[in-house]
């Protein structure tokens, strides 16, 4: 189920599911990888380097890195530049909650505006933007 987004794009409420792995490699530097699936736009994967701050049980980080997503119908995967903010709340045990929101901008155009009578084919212009917000639950180790 989709509906028009603010930019004329497609919002797809929680059909978006994924897995994220985040690791602290230095006191304030995390590396992060994730892979998600969406029934409308297909798959999406990203890597990010994250500047993190830990306050008690809360880890807040700003991340940036490449994001690759399924592209236009006939084209190769689309490449984006991703930036996001993340908050991880650790519980007493190993359970943690994650919230992340961000945006990614397409680095190159794909396809072209090919509209038929009732529909247009997928088209991606340079600078087109993905917006996302995610809520996750997981485990720390």
């Amino acid at each position, binding site marked *: 189920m989709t509906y028009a987004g603010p930019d004329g*794009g*497609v919002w797809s409420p929680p059909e978006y599911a994924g897995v*994220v*792995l985040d*690791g602290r490699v230095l006191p304030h530097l995390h590396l992060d990888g994730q892979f998600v699936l969406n029934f409308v736009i297909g798959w999406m994967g990203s890597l990010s380097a994250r500047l993190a701050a830990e306050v008690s049980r809360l880890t807040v980080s700003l991340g940036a890195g490449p994001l690759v997503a399924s592209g236009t119908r006939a084209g190769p995967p689309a490449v984006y530049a991703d930036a996001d903010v993340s908050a991880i709340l650790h519980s007493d045990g190993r359970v943690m909650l*994650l919230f992340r929101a961000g945006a990614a901008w397409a680095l190159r155009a794909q396809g072209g505006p090919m509209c038929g009578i009732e529909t247009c084919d997928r088209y991606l212009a340079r600078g087109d933007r993905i917006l996302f*917000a995610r*809520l996750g*639950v997981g*485990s720390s180790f």
Partner: protein
Amino acid sequence: MAPATAVVTPPGLRKVAAVLAGGDPPLDGGTALTEGEHEASDPAEVGRVESKNDVGEGGFAVAVPEGPSGDEDDLLTTREGPAAGLEEAMASGVGPVEVHSRSRRSGPVEGKAWVKIPSSCSSPSRARGRPPPPAAPAAEPEPRPYVVAFELGLIDSPIT
């Protein structure tokens, strides 16, 4: 005789040096608990005097890891005494403390010990049971370095 030396560590007070002596008050030395038996010149031979409970509410224990002879059979395990004596001792800096001890060789022994506490550690206000200043809160454990999570979310994609 050389005094038997030990260390007193009641809660809320830092470790202080003490002198254990026995018999009628030779405050700065003398015999040990049972005359001649527990004499020691090396503090390490006598061990430590440690409070078991808050001052004024319980007692204290004197753990003696090794007897003066160095013979394990002369090991003195624990001496216990009422808190009141210790409290007085701490208030005055020097005072008698009833002690009860056990020696593997000689069996139970009882007597008095005199605990000498340096003036820097014998504040009467502390000795009368005022609670020590609150300890700094324990540091939060650092979160584990790795997380794996399952996510659900919303997305607005330009690909239509």
